[in-house]
């Protein structure tokens, strides 16, 4: 059974590095008593795929994770029961085995960056981002970005924002990923809850 989970990684959990985070998920499944299918081979691992790894320090408001399970009764409730604070499963969608890999679905990523002080224009972003910038919106100290993903390559929002704040250490931006987007495509059916569509 193949499931795509939509979840949030908030607050302190943002600082858990990706590899540790992956292990944490394995553990959460074991704690919830849900058996993950394993990969074949000498060193079997649970079959689990993140749509797009989140940089350490970024929060994620609508992240996607693909898993293969032996059974899937009440997965959302069972997982949320054992989740540490700051992690929450928002929805689960069963998809057919022929469904595209979750990593292949990602065409764009949306971020919200908290700026050290308000900006008059986001021109500096445009120059730095080039083709990758699909949309940028400034609201006071908040910068919302929609960034293209092509061949699984994209550009980091902290580096972009850094272009407007020379001398500011880009690690210091507070960043949330607000959504994962796909282009309209007849192969994406059913549409997994939590996956947003580019219009």
């Amino acid at each position, binding site marked *: 059974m193949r499931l795509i989970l939509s979840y949030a990684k908030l*607050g302190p959990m943002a600082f858990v590095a990706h*590899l*540790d985070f992956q*292990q944490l998920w394995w*553990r959460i499944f074991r*704690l919830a008593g849900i058996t993950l299918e394993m990969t074949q081979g000498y060193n079997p691992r649970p079959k689990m795929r993140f749509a797009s790894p989140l940089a350490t320090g970024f929060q994620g408001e609508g992240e996607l994770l693909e898993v293969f399970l032996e059974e899937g009764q009440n997965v959302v409730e069972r997982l949320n029961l054992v989740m*540490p*604070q700051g992690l929450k499963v928002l929805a689960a969608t069963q998809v057919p085995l022929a469904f595209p890999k979750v990593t292949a679905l990602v065409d764009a990523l949306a971020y919200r960056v908290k700026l050290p002080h308000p900006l008059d224009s986001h021109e500096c972003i445009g120059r730095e981002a080039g083709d990758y910038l699909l949309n940028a919106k400034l609201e006071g100290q908040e910068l919302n970005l929609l960034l293209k993903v092509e061949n699984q390559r994209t550009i980091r929002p902290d580096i972009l924002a850094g272009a407007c704040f020379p001398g500011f250490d880009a690690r*210091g931006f507070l960043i949330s990923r607000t959504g994962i987007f796909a282009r309209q495509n007849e192969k994406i059916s059913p549409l997994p809850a939590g996956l947003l569509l580019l219009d």
Partner: protein
Amino acid sequence: MWDKLQAILPFVEKPARYIGNEINSVVKAKEEVLLRFALAFPDVYEIGTSYMGFQILYEIINSIPWAQAERVFAPWPDMEAKLREHKLPLYGLETKTGLKDFDLIGFTLQYELGYTNLLNMLDLSGLSPYARERTGFPLIIAGGPGALNPEPLADFIDAFVLGEGEEIVPEIAETVARGKKQGWDKEKTLKSLAAIPGIYVPKFYTPAYDAQGKSIGIQPMGSFPPLKKRIVRDFASYPLPKKLVVPLVQPVHDRVSIEICRGCARGCRFCQAGMLYRPVRERPMEQLVQQGKMLLQNTGSSEISLSSLSSADYSKIEELVGTLMASGDTSVSLPSLRVDSYSVELARLTRAVRKTGLTLAPEAGSQRLRNVINKNVREEDIFSAARAAFANGWDNLKLYFMLGLPTETDGDIEGIVRMVWGLDKLYREIRGNKGRLRMTVAVSTFVPKAHTPFQWAAFLGREEVKRRQRLLLEKLRPPKFKVQTMDWEESKLEALLARGNRKTGQAIFLAWQKGCRFDAWTEHFRPQLWAESFAQTGIDVEAALGAISLRAVLPWEHIDIGVSKDYLLRELGRAQEAAETPDCTRDKCSDCGVCAAFAVTPLKRKGKAECD
């Protein structure tokens, strides 16, 4: 506090060390909490979170409705710099409360090279490292093996906790809470604590001298119970913790560890743990099986490590391993194996060891020297252990030895070389031309430790240690063999602190002031600063490292661990005759005194140990 942390965490390595929020961590509502108790480990998160002792105390304290235990670890230097830059205090991971606002901070002293971290953690909390300069709360207490030679930290710690913590820690919590309700000041609270057996409040004691000015040891100024370590006599009635906090920065191994027995009766004469944790007590097998399964369930782990100073000595070890493994998806690991084929067979059952390789600790290269240190292992045991390992497909062997043991000669070191070459030959005989043996020879330097038969022995000088290390390095060359040696300077510091007295504390303070931190980490260890610090305090380092007169009053003489000095002296004498003393759980009692001291019935195990 979180807002402020959020601003600095992006700039430090492994920020998850500082966020708390782990599965099974406990956060209580502020209104419920009367007593805030920090469990402080003076090393980095990944090391501290794998220390089982704190997992036990964490659960015990948090099971008291009005007490909140929180954990705190030494911040890595990058985090220290950020905390200082932003003037943020060190805090408990659970509620992010600054340590200054706790009632009690309890350090564990697992190894001497964490002592500068301890001072640094106090300083980062906004507290003076010196106990006499802290007039109010929190009280700083310290336990663990280091508390049994407390003098080097006596100027910094308000109260030492001697021996095992399960029983005494709730007594401490209750006393301090009672004081808090009744408005006791620090002095009054310390007086009440000092009345609890097993608590040593150094400010109520003073170093005393005879008419000639010779030390006669630390004497009480008033009437207090004897300074005797505490143990839990009824071991089984203190069950394992039901849950373990699961670290968010993964340790190398993801496993739960269950303590199957406490204490070891083999009586290695260099081994401090072997003396401090006596008498030997075992947990009933049924309890271990049931609780082990519960722990796996509550932590989401799939591997159990059976911890003890010598796991293969547990009476029903085979049955225990078998039962735990019968449930299918559980793997079992045995961390401290004896050197014999029985242990290897046992390890073979467990699968888990398979991938990692086999570790054996003969400690010395000749039978004579093994008799001197009472490591009851014969050449045949080593070879039969290796034979069993090679025959079962192991290609990775790690051997532990010590250099600089009392009476060691070049002949003993050549014994190591012969043994290693012999094992290599054995591997060829068994495996033919198939396979490739990877053998690692890890050589540490002998450090005399308090409360052991070798506590009076000398620590060997630098040139001689280097020369002996070279003997090995020249004859055991890569790529065939890998020899790992210990940095002499680090062992030397360990030796100075392990047998230190009150004056040593001044050197620790100076070293910390000069910037020493994380001395156990080679990349941070700064021997030059330590040398300056010792020089400034006027301590004669050469003399401190030399042999101690049997007539001298030892700096830890006032601390009673139940093992008699008479026994330690007898054992030292037997070492000089290269005479072995048998394991008292399988052979006759050697009258170390501990069973009588705690009125326990000596544990008897069936049969002789394989290697006897």
